[in-house]
């Protein structure tokens, strides 16, 4: 049976079509790749948070996730490998009125871009990182990375990874992020609400999204196809209570990830702390105006 749309000739329009560049679809991601799920959650998250799309600027790095710049219908800047965060900082400092989002992958953000991540978190720079973690470098063929679990296989760890991976939420939390959460792409409702929450924070936020990579990581580690992998997410998830990561009480290892082990998810950190602008303002209150949005160039008329 065909869907009604085919039989009555109704024009098909996905509810979030206006936020994507339709002409670029179908997208380049593999069948079963979770990046598209995270992208949809992001778009819906922005709408839940009622943020004006004109003000949403997305900066992405190199890798599969970095290719979001091809699909989002808003200002998108695609940088060199590992460098979306400093680019985002430059944008945010000169245009504090913009909602600056960094949408990138595990290798881009935590290997080559690791230094920028920790310093942006340290500064509590109000940019919003959405870190898609598929445990490998997908775009370049499935090499291991800083989040590849111990013993997991990849093209550069063919007999299994012999290193400890990063625990992204604990890294972000220990560096000073004010909102840190981890979800899987199975957690679509909590993910979009968490993204909405993170966008409303006036500090450095990091939402880690565990995502299937069935063509490289998933296949190499015999996780099965995307349905198998998502079933594993569903079964392996452990929801931690909100604001779980208080330094005194919790052991960061409790939220670490392993190969085919439990996946602790949740909103680990949600605190309020002076952000970069607050701190800057305290020192430079005589000189600098917070929230300065005008520049020595002409501002354009907004469309519509």
């Amino acid at each position: 049976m065909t869907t009604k749309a085919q039989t009555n000739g109704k024009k098909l329009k996905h509810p979030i079509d206006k936020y994507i560049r339709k002409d670029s679809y179908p997208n380049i991601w593999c069948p079963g790749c979770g990046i598209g799920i995270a992208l949809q959650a992001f778009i819906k998250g922005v709408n839940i948070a009622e943020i004006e799309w004109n003000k949403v600027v997305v900066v992405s790095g190199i890798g599969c996730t970095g290719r979001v710049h091809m699909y989002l219908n808003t200002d998108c800047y695609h940088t060199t490998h590992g460098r979306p965060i400093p680019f985002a900082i430059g944008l945010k400092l000169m245009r504090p009125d913009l909602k600056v989002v960094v949408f990138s992958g595990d290798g881009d953000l935590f290997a080559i871009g690791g230094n920028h991540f920790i310093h942006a978190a340290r500064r509590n720079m109000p940019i919003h990182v959405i870190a898609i973690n598929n445990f490998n470098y997908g775009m370049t063929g499935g090499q291991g990375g800083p989040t590849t679990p111990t013993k997991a296989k990849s093209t550069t760890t063919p007999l299994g990874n012999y290193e400890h991976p990063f625990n992204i939420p604990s890294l972000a939390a220990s560096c000073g992020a004010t909102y840190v959460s981890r979800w899987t792409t199975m957690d679509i409702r909590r993910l979009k609400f968490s993204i909405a929450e993170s966008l409303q924070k006036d500090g450095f936020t990091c939402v880690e999204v565990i995502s299937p990579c069935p063509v490289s990581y998933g296949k190499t580690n015999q996780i099965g196809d995307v349905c198998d992998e998502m079933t594993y997410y569903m079964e392996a998830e452990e929801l931690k209570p909100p604001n779980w990561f208080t330094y005194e009480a919790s052991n960061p290892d409790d939220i670490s990830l392993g190969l085919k082990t439990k996946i602790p998810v949740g909103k680990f950190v949600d605190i309020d702390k002076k952000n970069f602008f607050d701190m800057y303002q305290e020192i430079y209150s005589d000189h600098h105006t917070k929230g300065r949005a005008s520049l020595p160039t002409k501002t354009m008329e907004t469309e519509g």
Partner: protein
Amino acid sequence: MAKPSMLHTNGTRIPIDLSKHVIPRGEVYIIDDRCKECSLCVEFCPKDILEMSERYNKKGYKLPQMIDSRADECIACSFCEDICPELAIYVEEEVAV
């Protein structure tokens, strides 16, 4: 209107104002050319109302469809819409007359 057969009868309490509630009904639409046959929608529909069809799109991917006999059971939860990486499936809630 909710059919009695859809309700749990294993001892779960039934709200006394149940007759006032309308379980939403939805219609699922597929944007053929975007689908990549990942099958997440079929696999995870909580009401099991989707199946893979015999239709193919331009790229050779098989497309999902609503199961004929279960089409009325779509409750417009939009899980298929949210879980689709390709924005190839969406749900419209039908307004009861």
